[in-house]
């Protein structure tokens, strides 16, 4: 079963003076086994949208289909725990959720909550910590004494150890150094390619969208305005220009060179290809 939203509305604090309509009639189907980016300006409803995926929020109107589950407001939504085991959600700045005495214990917290055996949980947690690049020397340290970037990795390992089929990440690279962000994104690609995980990433970084993602969903003021393959989004049609977000650096370089009179194909997507094209242009002169 796919992941789909059908006419989903979500209203915060309905019937009060603080009422706010965060999602407006969302129709969306997300492909399994792909990496989907969700982009859009702040306040466009991205975080609200992803919180529906593991039933932290239930739509005010409409239905969310996820894996073999169906969520809507007019039915009792029971046994959400089993859904949360299969859909792992990593919040924005997840480092604030750490609380255990040691890093290993903190990562094991999730698996143990989902009734894995102690031994199994330990094994999964160690694997998850290795995946995020933290070795044995970290296991017994306090999660509150390490650097911000390392805390982020521990928090993400805490979800990976649950071994969900669908991994949802709300701005996982915000505030990380470029190298850290890159290795984080490469980890997600590996999880997708090697373990066939479905991955959704909320991001502001268009470079990450271009470099690592398969599909892209653009949101604005609580609505989905486009949902396309990444290549189509950047190189076909005009939708990329309609959204007010900085283009990926590579595309901006091509754009600037074209403005200066270089005869480059605006659809160059690979960095080596671009270098060759520039070399060709220069040797012509």
């Amino acid at each position, binding site marked *: 079963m796919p992941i789909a939203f059908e006419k989903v509305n979500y209203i915060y604090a309905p019937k009060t003076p603080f009422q706010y309509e965060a999602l407006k009639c969302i129709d969306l189907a997300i492909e399994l086994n792909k990496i989907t980016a969700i982009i859009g300006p702040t306040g466009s409803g991205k975080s609200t949208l992803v919180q529906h995926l593991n039933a932290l929020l239930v739509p005010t109107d409409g239905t969310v289909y996820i894996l073999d589950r169906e969520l809507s407001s007019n039915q009792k939504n029971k046994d959400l725990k089993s859904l949360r085991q299969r859909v792992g959600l*990593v*919040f924005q700045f997840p480092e*604030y959720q750490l*609380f255990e005495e040691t890093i290993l214990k903190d990562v094991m917290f999730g698996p143990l*909550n989902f009734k894995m055996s102690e031994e199994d949980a330990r094994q999964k947690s160690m694997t998850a910590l290795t995946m995020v690049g933290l070795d044995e020397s970290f296991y017994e340290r306090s999660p509150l004494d390490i650097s911000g970037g390392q805390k982020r990795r521990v928090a993400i390992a805490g979800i990976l150890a*649950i071994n969900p089929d669908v991994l949802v990440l709300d701005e996982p690279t915000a505030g990380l150094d470029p190298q850290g962000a890159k290795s984080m994104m490469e980890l997600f690609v590996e999880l997708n390619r090697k373990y066939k995980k479905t991955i959704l990433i909320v991001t502001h970084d268009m470079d990450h969208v271009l470099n690592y993602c398969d599909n892209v969903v653009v949101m604005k003021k609580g609505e989905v305005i486009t949902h396309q393959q990444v290549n189509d989004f950047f190189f076909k049609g005009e939708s990329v220009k309609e959204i007010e977000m900085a283009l990926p650096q590579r595309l901006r370089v091509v754009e600037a060179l074209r403005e200066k009179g270089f005869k480059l194909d605006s659809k160059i997507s690979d960095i080596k290809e671009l270098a060759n094209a520039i070399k060709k242009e220069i040797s012509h002169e």
Partner: protein
Amino acid sequence: MNNIALGRYLPLDSIVHKMDPRYKLVAMLVLMIAIFFPSGYIGYAIIGSFVLFSLLLAKLNIKMILRAMKPMLFMLVFLTFVNTLVLRTGYVLIDLFGFKVYSDAIFQTLYITIRLLLMIMVTTILTASTKPLDLTLAIEDLFSPLKRFGFPAHEIAMMISIALRFIPTLIDETNRIMKAQASRGVDLKEGTFKEKIMAILSLIVPLFVSSFQRAEELADAMEARGYIPSAKRTRYKQLKHTMKDWVMMFCVICVLGSVIWISL
């Protein structure tokens, strides 16, 4: 957590909202004193009608206040129960197979109920019509004569306003951490006793950590901007009293006066 009706500021446009917070604060204290005088039903009728009148002036909804009373229902039932058992004065009102319920028991309970209701109404009018920050300004102003004796009026007002400022932030933070831990399989409603303790721990520890961190950051930010508690500083918002404040004060003192006169 979003239904806290008691003590919440309601941004309405009324004459009570525009009054000087200092006068409102003092008026509240005077009315509280009046409520505690044993003035009988006539006294409560006077206070009650004045409070109801101010409630209307402040454009507040009586239903809202009654809703705020709901949590006290249990206490009142308990009180009635204890009173009927303990108080054995007055005349017999009901005779239940030899168990006598005396009139004073019922009247005493009624008194307490009316007092509680009036007190809640008075405080709600104050907090609903005055911004928390204005209220702390008023506290600072009212205590400032005590500065001469080394009373830290400004510091206390600053502490109160910082505490008030961070209540919504903490509520947001709690919701966020609850959701994050729910994603890790925490279930606050079900589970064994041990699981529940772990669930609460997983909420409280991060909350403490981030609160301490935030406090340190705030202190740094204040120091970076040269904040010294004892420094002399001016204020953007000046408290001004007008005719309506004096009129209100006069009415409140009249209420107190008549209540004292009745209870003598």
